[in-house]
């Protein structure tokens, strides 16, 4: 490796590692002057805090719900578009950009007005209103990940081969298409997980108590535990990414990409 490349690598590593180290260092301090380093009391405080577990459970379940709804909605739709209506793809791609363009604060105001008057089990519960908003928010991530997955395989030939061998549409989707876009579906799922676990604006304005709201509250009121909380949420994200890597490395996935690319 050239010396200049090594320097750039060090600088890039420092850019990511220094803030993490600073947060770690901060999270190991105690809120008393003159106490020696280091203490795990901030982590203990977080792990023994009922709100932490409550909000992280809500956010995690919301993420799972969003992922399930999004996959059920978008996988068959994308499959149908790639198979039968390829000319519609650019239209959907344009629509998928809308959540990027419209600021979340504008979107939430619009959604609150749109859904006002709906039953309380929907409007007053995170599993209804918030999940709906998050499905919209996750749309671009779902679309572009799944689109890449569908484009990496020969959807037409695989479908026709499966149908020719006697498979129904459902069997074809579940046993032939889905396993071959698994990496794309997983990538879309974990992007969605990351978005939902970190989404603040919509949850705050719609007055739902999710993990990012708790994180913000702790950050404002207690500095040192906030550092511990930040690192823990960082570890959750890393754990999710690691799971993606491990699941994505299963047999046959490489084949899906290589054969489809021919």
């Amino acid at each position, binding site marked *: 490796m050239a010396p200049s490349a090594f320097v750039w690598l060090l600088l890039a590593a420092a850019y990511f590692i220094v803030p993490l180290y600073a947060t770690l260092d901060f999270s190991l301090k105690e809120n008393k002057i003159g106490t020696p380093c280091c203490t795990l009391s901030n982590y203990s405080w977080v792990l023994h805090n009922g709100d932490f577990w409550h909000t992280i459970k809500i956010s995690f379940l919301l993420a799972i719900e969003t992922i399930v709804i999004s996959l059920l909605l978008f996988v068959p739709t994308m499959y149908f578009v790639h198979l039968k209506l390829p000319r519609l793809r650019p239209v959907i791609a344009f629509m998928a950009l809308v959540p990027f363009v419209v600021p979340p604060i504008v979107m939430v105001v619009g959604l609150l007005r749109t859904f006002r008057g709906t039953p309380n089990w929907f409007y007053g519960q995170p599993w209804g209103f918030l999940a709906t908003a998050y499905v919209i928010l996750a749309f671009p991530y779902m679309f572009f990940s799944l689109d890449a997955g569908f484009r990496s395989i020969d959807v037409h030939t695989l479908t026709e*081969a499966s*149908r*020719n061998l*006697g498979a129904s549409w459902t069997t074809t989707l579940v046993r*032939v298409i889905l396993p071959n876009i698994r990496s794309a579906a997983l990538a879309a799922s974990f992007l969605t997980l990351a978005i939902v676990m970190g989404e603040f604006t919509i949850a705050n304005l719609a007055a739902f108590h999710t993990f990012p709201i708790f994180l913000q509250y702790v950050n404002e009121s207690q500095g040192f535990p906030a550092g511990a909380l930040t690192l823990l949420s960082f570890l959750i994200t890393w754990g999710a990414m690691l799971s993606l890597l491990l699941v994505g490395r299963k047999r*046959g996935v490489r084949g*899906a990409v*290589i*054969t489809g690319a*021919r």
Partner: protein
Amino acid sequence: MSYLELQDLHRNFGAVKALNGINIALGEGEFLSLLGPSGCGKTTALRLVAGFDRPDAGGIVVDGREITNVPPNKRDMGMVFQAYSLFPNMNARQNVEFGLRIRGKHKGDGSKRVDDLLELVGLSHAVDRYPHQLSGGMQQRVALARALAIEPRVLLLDEPLSALDAKVRVQLREEIRRIQLELGITTLYVTHDQEEALAISDHVAVMYGGVIEQMGTPAEMYTAPATPFVAEFIGTMNRLDATVLDGTTGEVEHSGLRLQVDAARGRRTGERVLVLIRPESLELEARTDGVPPNSFTGEVLTQTFLGPVTRVKVTGTGTSLIADMSTARAAALPVGAQVVARIPSQGAKLISLPDDGPGLPALDPDDQ
């Protein structure tokens, strides 16, 4: 009685008539190749039989049962595709097993059938390999085994060898024929490769512009083309746009060249005809004094080495002809040599041309 019947099939894509009324009747266990250039409608016809598309008019009958509107997963047709179509998430064995698994027949006899088929296509050693671990030829063998596993009523092959290199292509086409004969399965094969079609088929149907130009045995197609297109498409052919001078003697005239052609006997004097002469029927020799009857004099323009034979192009007044001859004999006739080409009166074929129609397109025999 016919086992597979395509009855007056029509299929339009917008203004394009992909199929314009094709009729095919194929007996059980027979092998028919649909042969033609790109866009002739051969793949459209195959897709209609497979059920991936519906005809605008006409019907498809298999073993006496109308299946025109039956969905593809209920037709019991095995198909091998042009593109590599193995399921990437399954290994070779799982791919072959897929159709049987759908039918709940993958255990017991089904499992044995999978083993037998993998052995039949010579892949017993690669059952656990995934598609990306198989070569193109091996993938198509697995695809063939997969199509045969469901014991299809008709085997459909859509240019299955076109993505393979020449050597594997020849090897695999022979294997396809061997397996087809061994299993006695009715087969519809689509190809644009005339050599492939002639080599492995019981019958060949040459298609052009959405219609079948001619259907017959490979030998009939080669020796007695019925239309100018078939004559042009099957093999290499010298084509002379001629006029019958004397229907009694069989004398025709092309650009001042008078020839005796047996096939012209009985034709109307003044009739426009296309004289077809295979390159291997022409005899070339160095020109000496005098011109023998029924011959064409000219100069050797090019020589193309084709392995067992050398193709010699001779050009003279008003026309050019090509002749295939042994490489040793061709060496005696270098480029620029004056030669005589003897045209056998019995070897030439004749096709009628419309009197008031357009003339024969200016086709260079080398372009065939």
